[in-house]
């Protein structure tokens, strides 16, 4: 009565059926997760894109200047490039040159 071979066949069938359904379900779950993540990514990408646009708009020179002027701060003037010294020695050398020139002028005036 007991047919071992038939039983074995059915067991194999059931085993593979379960495995297949598991794999299929898993792949479906993963697909759904991917789709969900995809939607999130798109939404985030959109947010980033809009945030970048806003940043570009709000950090435009025009906006920054307006914002700056709206604060009651000291007014800053651009410093002339020629007045920027990178080393103290350079500043001292120039000062010496200037003081020498002033001394020469003073001497000339005294002579007169």
């Amino acid at each position, binding site marked *: 009565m007991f047919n071992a071979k038939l039983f074995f066949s059915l067991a194999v069938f059931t085993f593979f059926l379960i495995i297949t359904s598991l794999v299929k379900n898993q792949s479906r779950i993963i697909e759904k997760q991917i789709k969900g993540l995809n939607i999130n990514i798109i939404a985030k990408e959109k947010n980033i894109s809009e945030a970048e646009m806003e940043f*570009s708009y709000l950090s435009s020179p025009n906006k920054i200047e307006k914002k700056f002027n709206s604060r009651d701060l000291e007014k800053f003037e651009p410093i002339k490039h*020629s007045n920027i010294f990178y080393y103290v020695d350079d500043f001292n050398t120039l000062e010496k040159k200037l003081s020498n020139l002033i001394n020469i002028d003073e001497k000339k005036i005294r002579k007169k």
Partner: protein
Amino acid sequence: MKKKSGKNKTTNQRSFYFEDYLETNKKSKNLKKNNNFEDRNYLLFFFFFSLITIFSIKIAYISLSQKEILGFNNQNSKFNLLRRDIVDRNGIIISRNINAYHAAVDPKLVRDKKNFLIKLRLIFPNLPIEEIRQKLKGKKYFRIKTRITQNEKQKLWSLGEKAIKFEPFQARMYTHGDLFSHVIGQVDYDNFGISGIEKYFDKELKSKNLKDTPLELTLDSNIQYIINKELSEAVKTFDASGAAALLMNVNNGDILSLVSLPNFNINQRKTITDKNYINKITKGVYELGSIFKTFTVALALERNIVRKDTVIENIPRKLKCSIHEITDMKEHPSNLSTEEILVRSSNVGSVILAQKIGEDVFKKFIKNTNLTKVPVIELEEVGAPHEIKWNKCKIETVSFGHGITTTPLQATTLYASLTNGGNLVTPSLIKERNKIETKKIISNETSKEISSILRQVVSSENGTASLADIDGYYVGGKTGTAESYGNNKQRINSFISVFPTKKPNYSLFVMLENPKLNKDLIYNYRGIKTKAPYNTSGWNSVYVAGKIIEKIGPILAINNKDFLNQYVVEKFN
């Protein structure tokens, strides 16, 4: 015997053959059963194996080829921008597509039309309600408002009307408003470029292969803003009808800033018919006046007709040429060196030099430098200079910039080429463009001489551009005061500068259209406080250029270490 024994065997017992047959039959049946079982198992195994393989492949495919599955491909992505971004040289966004909506109405779905109109009027008082009322009587679907903002969409949404439909579309946003209006241009509602860069690079901007890489321009937003601001102030100060400025890298022709005033907000679609709104730098064609004297002097030096210090003696006050009488605005000494002719901007001196050069050489120079051809740049809005008729007295007038027209872009390009060592550059707005072979128009020596003469125009006592002598930048340049071609009432005051003249890096063009004399403005002219005596470019365009250079100089120096180091070394030696 044999037969008998055989007969006995058949009657009494099963034959050997029969038994054998039965055995083999049984065996074969068993074998068949076994084979069937194995076959079934194989089939089952194969079937499920195939299924598992298919799903495994699918999983592997999902994990490996992310791009297609994750929806990043062009078809599946909901956030699929139809046009590429446009950014400036520092990567700052100038234009980008965003998702936007048009609001439309399906009249069939409106239940209470009166109530609907009242609600609409409350939200949007400026809507043409009467027109909408008429359209509601029909059955045709129609738009009530194009390109609505997020706030407006929320308001319409809150009405809870089924009849209101939101049509999604992609709108182009320009974060800097009117700052780049003449360069960037606009797109229509279907994302087709209709002007400026948007039109010129329409195909490239829509390219799906380059979707993630923005179109990089040579323009600098900060410099553009400073120049735009200074020019706008100058328009008010000198009551000018328009203004324009162009900043170019003399070594490669990269345009760092292009401003033309009046400008307009490119986020709003409007039909502009006023010609004053053209791109004055590329489309405007002008008779730029004394700016051309530099070309005459450069040509005379290049052809060894004169040297920088060659003195032209007995220069007359007036010179008659055909029916024209050529004079100088100011009285100059009768003996002037070649350098002084340019520094003092002597018309008569330029005519004498041009006569020495000869018409053929002058013609060839103008042809080689593309001065009177349609300018080459990545914009559709370009002007065509008038064709020169080389009749009597033409070379004489052309020598000081009269009777010849060109666009500011071409004039600035030629100044850049004359001061960069003599290589003719091609202006461009695109950062990574294909390299174009440059041709030599003058020698290095002549180029250096021209730069030093231009410096004298700004720094010397007799020069016409002292107000642009900004400490530390070694500015050189030439002024041009002229009447608009074919319109004597229009005045064009322009100034082209190059800096630093010891090794020129940048060329700046500033032009004011119809400026007036500002009697209230007090200038710091060589340390003396004074008011403007004349309405010449030396008292307005040069003044504006000086203010611009003073402000953009530090930005340019930051981006260029050579320039910074050169200056620091120069200062302390």
